[in-house]
């Protein structure tokens, strides 16, 4: 497949996903409501717990929760929806590889999920009157861009699990809260046991949160450069893993059949 074909298929999949989601009231509701609630809770815990200096950290953490949630739910639900709608078989039968199609859709989700961060900042400012000064705006923008890439690639890997297993929808629920905690989105990583750290460091949300928080001026002991490098490394790792997973999955689903079942 040539590059032009790949880019057009990516764009087509991106557009289909964006159009379908933009007209889905449940998705829109989740995208807006959850970040507001998480900001009210997370920031409230720190402010009423006597640590208002952690307000910005909590706002960014709540935003990352929104980003993670939207990626997890929507990357999973892409495949579930395709399966339920009977379109998954047609995607497998198309000349474009499933990997490219799901990458386009995952990118669309990741971009939409960045709205969560804007919503948490707005909620923090309006409700708690938090001064939300970003110390290093360019570094923050860079962190946002790398977060977008990493979450897209992670969405690709998560999506592959949903192609294989009909019951993978339950995985979204199971993975939800553990990842919040493991990635330090609600409480700093330093309060977690040391033996859990390797798991934390293998997750993109951990480094995304660190990069965003450090460039905003909180988490003074974190390194922006290290966070950037980790996000790039994890993005590459997720992409390579996703690439091989899809090559394997396309063979498996043709062997097994049952793509029309849900």
């Amino acid at each position, binding site marked *: *497949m040539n590059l032009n*074909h790949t880019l*057009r*298929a990516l*764009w*087509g*999949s991106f*557009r*289909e996903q964006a*159009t*379908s989601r933009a*007209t*889905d009231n449940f998705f829109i509701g989740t995208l807006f409501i959850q970040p507001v609630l998480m900001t009210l809770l997370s920031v409230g815990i720190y402010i009423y717990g006597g640590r208002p200096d952690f307000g910005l950290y909590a706002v960014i953490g709540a935003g990352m929760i929104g980003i993670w949630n939207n990626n997890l739910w929507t990357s999973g639900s892409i495949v579930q929806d395709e399966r339920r*709608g*009977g*379109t998954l*078989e*047609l*995607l*497998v*039968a*198309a*000349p*474009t590889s499933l990997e490219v*199609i799901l990458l386009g859709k995952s990118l669309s989700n990741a971009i939409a999920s960045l709205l969560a961060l804007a919503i948490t900042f707005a909620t923090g400012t309006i409700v708690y009157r938090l001064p939300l000064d970003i110390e290093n705006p360019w570094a923050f923008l860079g962190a946002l861009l790398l977060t977008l890439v990493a979450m897209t690639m992670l969405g690709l890997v998560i999506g592959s699990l949903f192609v294989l297993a009909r019951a993978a929808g339950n995985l979204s629920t199971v993975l939800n809260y553990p990842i919040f905690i493991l990635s330090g989105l609600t409480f700093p990583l330093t309060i977690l046991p040391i033996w859990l750290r390797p798991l934390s460091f293998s997750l993109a949300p951990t480094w995304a949160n660190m990069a965003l928080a450090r460039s905003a001026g909180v988490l003074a002991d974190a390194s922006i450069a290290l966070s950037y490098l980790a996000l790039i490394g994890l993005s590459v790792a997720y992409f390579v893993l996703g690439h091989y997973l899809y090559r394997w999955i396309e063979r498996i689903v*043709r*062997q097994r*059949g049952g*793509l*029309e079942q849900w």
Partner: protein
Amino acid sequence: MTAITTTALGRVFDTRTGVVRRKKKEIVALREVEFQVEQGELFGLLGPNGAGKTTLTKILSTILLPTSGRAHVLGFDVIDEARRLRPRIGIVFGGERGLYWRLSGRDTLLYFADLYHVPPKVAARRIPELLELVGLSDREEERVEGYSRGMKQRLHIARGLINDPEVLFLDEPTIGLDPVAAREVRRIIRDLSSEGKTIFLTSHYMYEIDELCDRVAVLNRGEVLTVDTPSALKRLVADLEVVEIEVLGARQPALDSLRAHEKVAALRVEAREQAQVLLIQAPGAAGLVGEFIGLLDGAQVRSVITRQPTLEDAYVRLVGPEAMKA
């Protein structure tokens, strides 16, 4: 030139039964399937529910792998050369699934044009043409969720044609449609065939296959029983006549007696509301109506029709009346 060839094609599905003591069970969906379809031919695959029609269509359209044998479409091996074959074929499944309900008809075609690598300029020309062909031009901007079942099916066909395929697979394209919508779909299929496309059509509607197809393969329990023209298949029952007796309350012993009648070649019983329709195939059946009614042991006869055999009667003779209940 040959468009489709299958050689000893087989497909076995693994399934499991039980919860605690799970047992693996094999279900043979296709066995030793062999046939050829010529380019430009409208080829029908006829069979009862569960005969293996969809499995065969999925294998030929590269969605599913066979577990034995080989299949080639346009000279490409469906197992190893799927990527090269896919741009040159189209697939349409019957029913309401298989569409993005939140997209408009036009956006659906645009999306699949991207997935099938149709150049933008070609897509800009082809999409309005396809919408015109399937009669959806005036509804192209509406979301699919608002379409009727017939409109969705016509959109399916337009989607299947987005890459101008050389071979089009149509799996039960009129299933669940009302007679007018089904006739419209058949009109489209006929038009496509007259343009020279190779069409592989599966259906369990006999009149549809009879009306449209150049040749037919009859599939039952995963096996191809015969491949021939509809008229040649009908000749299998040319020596027979068919009597349709609509009765109320015919009991099993009476039906057994009827089935055992020396002249009866086949008896099929269909339910029609509260009545039963007995379809009896027999040589000179018209002259035997009195005898048949006598065997019904007092069941109330509502109507009797005598007619010449159709493709459906030939099909019943091939697969046996029991297969029709599947």
